[in-house]
């Protein structure tokens, strides 16, 4: 039967399309529905386009601020903002096309349109005009509809002056001044990008540091670096209101108890995301929600309704593409009946791609203490790394948090060049339940930044060589 499937995935983001491919590999007759291009936020309006924008900033930053360190003379250095934006869009375009091919190659039926659950086994498909074009049945439905930027009434997004991350990656011209509300990964990445290109950036964060979920030392190091770049940071500050006045937006904040008036030509709302749970039949079916996200069993990813599953951003934090993908794979493998261990949510790397980069896994020092661990901390600054010196990237450090009793790696925190690439080692070490000793005894190539991981672990045990 053409319209009958064993698994139908609603939403083709990194959660959905990956789940669909895995399902097909496991022999399920599978379809994936998306109203837009495949790849979801991640490939269209998230990870990939932002990373390509950031590369421009890095190159420009290096040439503008460090070329003389390297003995390179540049005259008339300039950039073409329009081209920078265009490059990012082209990359996104190409990648999503590849995903369409990938999905097809894996014999997954790709259904374009807006999907709506009309029963627990049926999904109706609507075109852009809102007309029903198709109806398919499914033994299992996997919801992967993702999330969208959260909006507050006090900060009315008009997508011109008050914008979200989506508009921030396709601005027609470089803003002179930008206020970024929210200093999570997204806010901080845009802050770096625009500040390097010359925009005067102000960050407003409610918590007491930027990147508040990261280890305190890391956040503070990044804040210092940002301030050096000329980025203004207001922590412990909340936005009362933002009002568009002509070409400007005026923003009223309460900063540590005091009211302040700020103004900029663009305000970026980066306060977080909220699940896409409305308007496609969940309410009618009685799917249980939890703070605007779908509630699932985190072993099977089944909702309260049998046969309906959910994964990715739509089930809540940590809103990360790699988590969405893993949940998708895990979910269909469980449907298949494979015996696999549950996803360990304490072992998920989180990365922020500004410069210096920030990457971490596991518990922060504060969280480890809070959890009652007696800890051992090891730290190694890139300042002491030969490679870092050679490539002119001496900012930052690697920090290990160990459980003093059993030697477990509780957390690894890296700030510095290539931090986001280096965190993979810590992830593997943690998932194989390696200990500090295992890392110290693993030979790391010289000269690499990754040696700093080994040295940081060694430092915790008083065995570091280079500090």
């Amino acid at each position, binding site marked *: 039967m053409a319209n009958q499937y064993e698994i139908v995935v609603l939403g083709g983001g990194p959660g959905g399309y990956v789940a669909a491919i895995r399902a097909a590999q496991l022999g399920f007759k599978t379809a994936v529905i998306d109203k837009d291009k495949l790849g979801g936020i991640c490939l269209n309006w998230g990870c990939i386009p932002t990373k390509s924008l950031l590369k421009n900033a890095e190159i420009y930053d290096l040439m503008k601020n460090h070329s003389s360190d390297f003995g390179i003379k540049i005259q008339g250095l300039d950039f073409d903002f329009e081209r920078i934006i265009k490059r990012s869009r082209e990359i996104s375009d*190409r990648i999503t*096309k*590849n995903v*369409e*091919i990938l999905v*097809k*190659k894996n014999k997954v039926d790709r259904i374009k349109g807006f999907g709506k659950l009309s029963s627990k086994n049926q999904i109706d498909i609507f075109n852009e005009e809102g007309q029903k074009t198709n109806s398919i049945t499914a033994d299992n439905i996997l919801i992967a509809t993702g999330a969208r930027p959260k909006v507050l009434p006090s900060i009315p997004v008009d997508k011109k002056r008050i914008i979200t991350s989506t508009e921030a990656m396709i601005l027609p011209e470089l803003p002179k001044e930008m206020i970024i509300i929210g200093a999570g990964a997204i806010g901080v990445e845009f802050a770096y990008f625009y500040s390097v290109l010359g925009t005067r950036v102000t960050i407003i964060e409610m918590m007491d540091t930027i990147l508040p979920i990261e280890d305190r030392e890391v956040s503070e190091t990044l804040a210092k670096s940002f301030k050096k770049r000329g980025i203004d940071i207001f922590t412990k500050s909340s936005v009362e209101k933002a009002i568009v006045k002509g070409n400007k937006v005026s923003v009223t904040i309460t900063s540590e108890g005091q009211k302040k008036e700020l103004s900029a030509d663009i305000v970026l709302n980066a306060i977080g995301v909220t699940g896409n749970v409305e308007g496609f039949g969940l309410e009618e079916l009685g799917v249980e929600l939890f703070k605007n996200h779908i509630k699932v069993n985190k072993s099977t990813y089944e909702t309260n309704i049998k046969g309906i599953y959910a994964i990715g951003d739509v089930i809540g934090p940590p809103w990360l593409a790699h988590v969405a993908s893993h949940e998708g794979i895990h979910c269909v493998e469980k449907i298949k009946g494979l015996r*696999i*261990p549950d996803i360990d949510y304490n072992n998920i790397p989180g990365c922020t791609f500004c410069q210096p980069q920030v990457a971490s896994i596991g518990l922060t020092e504060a969280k480890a203490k809070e959890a009652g661990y*007696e800890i*051992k901390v090891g730290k190694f600054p890139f300042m002491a790394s030969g490679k870092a010196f050679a490539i002119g990237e001496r900012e930052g450090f690697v920090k290990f948090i160990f459980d*003093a*009793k*059993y*030697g*477990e790696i509780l957390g690894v925190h890296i700030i510095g060049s290539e931090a986001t690439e280096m965190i993979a080692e810590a992830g593997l070490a943690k998932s*194989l*339940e*390696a*200990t500090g*000793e*295992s890392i110290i005894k693993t030979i790391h190539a010289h000269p690499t930044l990754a040696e700093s991981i080994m040295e940081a672990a060694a430092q915790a*045990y*008083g*065995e570091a060589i280079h500090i």
Partner: protein
Amino acid sequence: MDIIMPKMGESVNEGTIIKWHKNKGDAVKRDEVIFEISTDKVDTEIPSPADGVLSEVKFNEGDTVAVGTVVAILNTSGEASTKNKETISEPAHHEEEIKTEYHEVKKQVDETVHAEVVSMPAAAEIKSGSNDLIELTMPKMGESVMEGTIIKWHKKVGDTVKKDETVFEISTDKVDTEVPSPANGVLAQILIGEQETVEVGTVVAKLSVSGTVISKDEIITKTEDLSGSQKKEPVFVKEGIAQPAAMHDNFARTSITEYEEVKAEGSEKSGSNNGSRFLSPLVMNIARKENISFEELEKINGTGLDGRVTKKDILSYIETRSKTKPPQNQSSVEEIKKETPHEQSYEAVKAVPASYTASGVQPVYSSHEVERIPMDNVRQKIMQHMINSRDTSVHVSAMIEADVTRIYRFLKANRDEIQRKQGIKLTYMPFVAHACIKALKEFPLVNATVDGYTIVKKKFINLGIAVAVEPNGLIVPNIKNADEKNIIGLARAINDIAERARTKRLTPDDITNGTFSITNYGIFGTIFGTPIINQPEVAILGVGTVVKKPVVVEVEGVDTIAIKPTMALTLTHDHRLVDGMLGGRFLKSIKDTLESFSENEI
């Protein structure tokens, strides 16, 4: 000139056009990219084979077409159009890919062929000579011994083995011993790896009497399997078969080697999950800190990948373990009686405190401060036995000094002659043993065992003698029916078991069913000690070194100081059964026997 969808590798039959870099009518230079394709192997850019103008584009982006299909036409102005159909040049890495692919296929084919060529004659040999194979099994080492652990293979597959030469070494809960070969031959196959525990009677290896090396066949068959199917993992198979002798008693390495071994066993062992564990460094750390034995680790249900024991698993095991308090009262007696090694060790280990340091938190040492040595089998067993004894008996020690002047003089005068005539070097031990046996007859309650609320009084005396085995072992074989022997007979018996203990030739019967033990720490110069009872006995006699001491003696009503060779004797007895009075009388009896020694007892 036709531009066709290029073939991107042997198995690639179609490709998808992802992007046209040139549109219809565009001028194209030679080597300039015209379009990009994606196949299930690679994505690649297709350059133009010549200068020209793209006159026709036949497919859209996203279309998938078969290899060889004309996708566009290039007008190369003039002579080119009349040329034979020319395919566009393939990108450089494409050829390379085909090459590698070819090599891979060829390698596979080579391997298969090789495997067949070599394996056929070998297989034939086995068939023809299959009844020259002798199966070596796990020997039965005593009535109650149901299983044994292979601790070391002394021979590798392919090694020549002489009759009576040691092939492997085993450890049971009673005894460690070396197993000799029943015949001359060549070790053809090893089925059970080091540190694996199997039931008595299990075939552990095969010996070829004619010397046929089926080891080769074994490897080859598996290699063949490999190239034929994906079932088996090459590395494991090869290493597992070829290097069993490289496995040692190291805790960490053991588990990994076992893993390899089990893989090598393949289907025969499937289902049994014994000794097949990868243990993460963290799990090993926790096990070490919490004194969890290898046997226990084996029993923990793993929830990780491939059934691996994770941190969570071991921590929750520790939690439930600490909740199950060691049994008390009558039940403890019953528990202790359990015979199987697993249960015994489990009981014993349960009693191990979570940590030996007072604070409960162990300091963390760096590797240059300490050396961490995994306990070998013997050490683990001694540990378990000691803890078990401590937690079973109520230990009380009493001490007495015996004046051994008479024996001293006798030995001095006769030792050499006895050695010459009887071939035996007489020491104090057989005298003590003899006195002890006499006391045991007099006070049979010391020659008993506690069984719940029942006292089991033994009518036979099997006298245990503690023997230190270098470098760090300890074993207590016993002399059966010791009461039937005289002093010289006891001397011979003691020498015999001590010698066999040191050369690992004891049988399980030698170490079971003892009724009372003697430990002679005097040989190290110790004057007195407080020994631990060898379960399930109820007392042990410690023998101190003989020292000459000034003692006050009464000679014709006058106190004077005399020099006497003196031996301190300690009796540690189980206060559950043997009270102070009995212990005291027992010691006194020994003292009297020793002090009143007369030559005609020999």
